[in-house]
């Protein structure tokens, strides 16, 4: 089984994030594998261990992503591919990433492609489905279970808390939802072996892509932090008066009733 994982390096949203000059400040940020992609990596390794084959982890990004790729290799992936767009692209969006990934994958005879359901930074959840569309293969998003029997695949999909069971076939692209599995820690021998595993670095040229082919379809107008939460208001006085005041505030100030 030829398995590919789409992985994104992202900042850790549990750490403090600051913005300067309209951009997220990368100096103080911690960078991690997008947590949903960790489920994807784990699932790919489990499928490979059960069915045989090979797991290749791909990312589109900069040199910096090598650390996250190595971590995926340390978890147990066999190969990693970094498509480095640092020198070619100043701005990219989901279209750009999907186009590059699809171009890379089109002649790879992938049986199964797994991505995260969303990246915790942008949160668009578009790259996976777009890649499947470009490759003209079926896809199922936000999956919580995956069973492969020959060429029949049974998938459980999370639908806002309910489950939908879908039967489909390979080749297939799925995106992982929380609950799909419990990602393993990279073991120490795994970390040491990771440095000997192949990590290929490609650029747009290697994929016969021009900058125009992948030019972003969207523009980012502004990046800003959520508004600081205002201090709450504590009402005082007789209970009946408080209720009156509350209703009046909800009506006039908050304008919700």
């Amino acid at each position, binding site marked *: 089984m030829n398995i590919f994982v789409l992985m994104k390096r992202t900042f850790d949203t549990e750490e403090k994030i600051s913005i300067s000059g309209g951009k997220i400040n990368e100096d103080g940020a911690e960078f991690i594998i997008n947590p949903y992609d960790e489920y994807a990596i784990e699932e790919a390794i489990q499928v490979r261990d059960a069915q045989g084959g090979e797991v290749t982890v791909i990312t589109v990004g900069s040199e910096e992503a*090598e*650390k996250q790729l*190595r*971590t995926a290799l*340390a978890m147990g992936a066999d190969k990693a591919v970094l498509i480095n767009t640092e020198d070619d692209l100043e701005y990219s969006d989901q279209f750009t990433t999907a186009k590059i990934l699809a171009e890379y994958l089109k002649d790879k005879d992938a049986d199964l492609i797994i991505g995260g359901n969303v990246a915790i930074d942008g949160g668009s959840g578009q790259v996976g489905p777009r890649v499947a569309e470009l490759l003209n293969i079926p896809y199922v998003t936000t999956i919580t279970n995956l069973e492969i029997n020959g060429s029949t695949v049974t998938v459980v999909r999370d639908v806002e808390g309910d489950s939908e069971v879908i039967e489909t076939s390979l080749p297939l692209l799925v995106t992982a939802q929380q609950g799909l599995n419990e990602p393993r*820690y*990279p*073991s*120490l*021998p*795994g*970390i*040491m072996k*990771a*440095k000997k595993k192949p990590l290929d670095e490609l650029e747009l040229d290697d994929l016969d892509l021009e900058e125009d082919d992948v030019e972003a379809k969207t523009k980012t107008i502004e990046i800003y932090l959520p508004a600081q939460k205002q201090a709450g208001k504590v009402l005082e006085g007789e209970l009946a008066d408080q209720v009156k005041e509350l209703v009046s505030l909800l009506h006039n100030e908050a304008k919700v009733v």
Partner: protein
Amino acid sequence: MNFELTKEQQMVKDMVKEFAEKEVAPKAVHVDKTGEFPVQTFEKMGQLGLLGIPFPEKYGGSGGDTISYAIAVEEIGKACGSTGLSYAAAVSLGASPIYYFGTEEQKQHFLVPLASGKGLGAFGLTEPNAGSDAGGTRTKAVLEGDEYVINGEKCFITNAEYAKTITVTAVTGKDERGKNIISAILVPTDTAGLTINSNYEKLGVRGSNTSEIILENVRVPKENLLGDPTGGFKQFLYTLDGGRISIAALSVGIAQAALEKAINYAKERTQFGQPIAKFQAIQFKLADMAMEIELARNMVYKAAWLKDNGKPFTKESAYAKLFASEAGFRACNQAVQIHGGYGYMREYEVERYLRDIKLMEIGEGTSEIQRLVIARQLV
């Protein structure tokens, strides 16, 4: 000169940090309160290859370096001092001497299970009348036919109750000057005549197992003699040099935990109308703590680097252990002070750091012994 960790070292740090936060830290209060040895944690650490970091793959290890190992000890120790101590002792004192001095056969038989995490090792050096003064060793091993017969008593042995193998030091004869020859002998813990008691009531590192060992006519094959039959003394000096790096790393971990707790508390605690972190008296304490911890960490890395590069590290590992344990004690003490009355209460955990870190100034050679070791390298 390069102060950056390698990618592998950084990955080890990230992995162990995450593991320690999720699996070790949540049990730290329970482990301290009950004195229960965290067996399951060690099983998980074994599966992840943490117990074999500095040993090659052919001996069941992970093929990492001493720096990676020191990083792992720091992160585990930051989460739980007890777990950190047992971890450091299992690798540096339990498994390492077999790796340094064992024959190929001994390594396959005794080191592989320890390095691959299927068991813990222990080092039986200290006796009621001997520790750093190895000359006082009373335990005797007499060769009878193909077996050594060992009699004696060991005390304060970390991990012994949970160990598969204990490396026991014993007097095996006298040299031409009439001085005791000390050898190291590998004793499987299921050997008849070996009794292990764990009745100590300790101030800190309470979840780390500490045992007394009584050896009564314990018979092991003569092949279990470790390394040079007359060089036991030199061997354990070298073993202790390595062990000091891990105790230093553990001190840094505990002190770092205390610093982080102190910073958070100082930012939250309001007195006289502002967070106490705004007071210079508190800021100066935090500045000293952070500075000393970073200096100690640098010394740990340097000693580990020297060891990894095959250079002498006796003096540097003693520097690291002495400075890290004393600076760490100061940091933990100040963390309690910054917390005031709350710091004296168990709920805030900083008092545990203070109790745990006190051992670092005592175990594997007291601060006074470290100064002796350093001075001997100078004059």
